[in-house]
């Protein structure tokens, strides 16, 4: 057991070091951009994972929460000249509150009915972005979103204009989120969520308030997506309704499933893998969706616990083999 823990710690340290060193490795800026997109996708997949992976409620509204965070923070910065550092948490809060409002009636629905309601909600949000032209400028989107304000640490001033600087900002946010996330899923709350996914009725008779925990997971997952939206807006500097579609929600879902839902490493692995794959497959144009579908099909059939689940199984087998030898 101890050896296994050590191996895990080692992998985590190497992964963090690699993530920190990545922009300094002399890759073209294009790859740093893909790096930033990967980080944003990890945050989105983690948000969905809390709802679907832990609490067992599949949501197809994650892109909508992503969009709400992006639009709310961008509008606060553009119209009220707020600083990014105030606008971003408010974007997250807005997404979280909307999720709680939506969750109160819809989380009573079970299985496919909940999924359908989130799909409908996601589409409504996109149409609002598209048609509320006096505020969102409709299909033209919102250009000229300012970058996060510089932070002065006394001896050095951090700016967030370039790709690399944004990469480090988002990586920092991700690492903080991961620490909080780890603590959350290993707390009483995390255990209650897993119990709900395991057995709805038994969880109720244990005296666990199922509706409360479901709404909590939905709200926190949405707030995380909203925060990601604000980071995205501050990085790309332009947002339009095209980004926040059902297609994006499904992308997030695929990342989580392929990586392995109900784990922390799963969404990370899945998001990096799929982001990279989407970019390299650009040459195939629309055919990439076929490859995509096939991949999803194979994963569900042969690796139901995703890449993370497969890796765990392999390492367990290696350890078992060692014991026998």
């Amino acid at each position, binding site marked *: 057991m101890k050896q296994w823990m050590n191996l895990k710690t080692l992998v985590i340290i190497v992964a963090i070091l690699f993530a920190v060193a990545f922009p300094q490795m002399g890759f073209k800026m294009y790859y740093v951009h893909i790096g930033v997109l990967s980080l944003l996708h990890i945050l989105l997949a983690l948000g969905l994972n809390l709802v679907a992976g832990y609490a067992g409620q599949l949501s197809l509204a994650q892109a909508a929460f992503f969009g709400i965070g992006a639009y709310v923070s961008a509008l606060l910065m553009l119209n009220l000249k707020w600083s990014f550092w105030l606008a971003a948490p408010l974007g997250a809060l807005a997404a979280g509150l909307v999720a709680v409002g939506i969750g109160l009636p819809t989380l009573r629905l079970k299985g496919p009915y909940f999924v359908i309601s989130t799909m409908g909600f996601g589409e409504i949000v996109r149409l609002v972005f598209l048609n509320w032209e006096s505020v969102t400028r409709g299909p033209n989107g919102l250009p000229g979103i300012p970058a996060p304000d510089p932070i002065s640490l006394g001896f050095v001033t951090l700016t967030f204009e370039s790709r690399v600087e944004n990469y480090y900002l988002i990586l920092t946010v991700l690492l903080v989120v991961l620490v909080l996330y780890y603590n959350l899923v290993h707390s*009483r709350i995390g*255990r*209650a969520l*897993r*119990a709900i*996914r*395991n*057995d709805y*009725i*038994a*969880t*109720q*008779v*244990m*005296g*666990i*308030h199922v509706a409360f925990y479901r709404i909590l997971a939905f709200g926190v997952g949405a707030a995380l997506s909203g925060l990601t939206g604000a980071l995205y807006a501050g990085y790309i500097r332009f947002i339009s309704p095209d980004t926040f579609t059902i297609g994006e929600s499904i992308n997030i879902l695929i990342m989580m499933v392929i990586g392995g839902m109900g784990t922390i490493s799963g969404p990370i692995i899945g998001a990096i893998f799929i982001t990279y794959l989407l970019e390299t497959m650009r040459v195939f144009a629309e055919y990439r969706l076929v490859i995509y579908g096939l991949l999803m099909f194979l994963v569900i059939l042969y690796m139901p616990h995703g890449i993370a689940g497969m890796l765990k199984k392999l390492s367990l087998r290696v350890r078992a083999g060692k014991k026998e030898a």
Partner: protein
Amino acid sequence: MLKIRDLSVHYGKIKAVRQIDMDIAQGEIVSLIGANGAGKSTTLRALSGLVKAAGGSVEFEGKDITGWNAKSIVEAGISHCPEGRQIFPRMTVMENLELGAYTRKDTKNLSVEYDRIFEYFPVLAQRRSQMGGTLSGGEQQMLAIGRALMSKPKLLLLDEPSLGLAPLLVEKIFEIIQNINREGMTVLLIEQNAWQALNIANRGYVMETGSVAVTGAASELLHNDHVRRAYLGE
């Protein structure tokens, strides 16, 4: 201890439970028997707050608990071990038990309950880090009962603990229920296995199509002509 008056439960237009009265005294085992669909499980679900009563009242230790939610009822001291076991299949035996203590504030003292449960069910101690779903049917039933005991209830509701178990195991489970009762636990037992249930009970209620048809001391019911014909197959 528990006083039910005029309790009715409806599922839409279907009246599953119609104005039943029931009393349970401290330290008793009370068996509720009846055919499939007679309203036994629904009665239990109403007691533990899983379904809302359409009418009537439930009083527990002098408090009116009618309409309370499931969480408050567990905290008041009623623990429900649901039909079909309903353990958490992808969590370990220990995690299952831990969840049973979810409403407890004194989480430092859980080891007392663990010891007691492992004494009743030694096999669970051996399986403690195994996933709930990999246990056999009998072991799962033991886990479900153990989990229900983790909240330190005063009244234990057992819904068909013999369901789908081999006859030998059924006997063992009933023996353990008696042990638990001897140590002071009040038990309300639902069973289709009427003979077994009445044999370990102090009193019994027979439900038919949503109402209580016969009630009395368990020994009387075992000799009641109607019960013998309808439920004991004589």
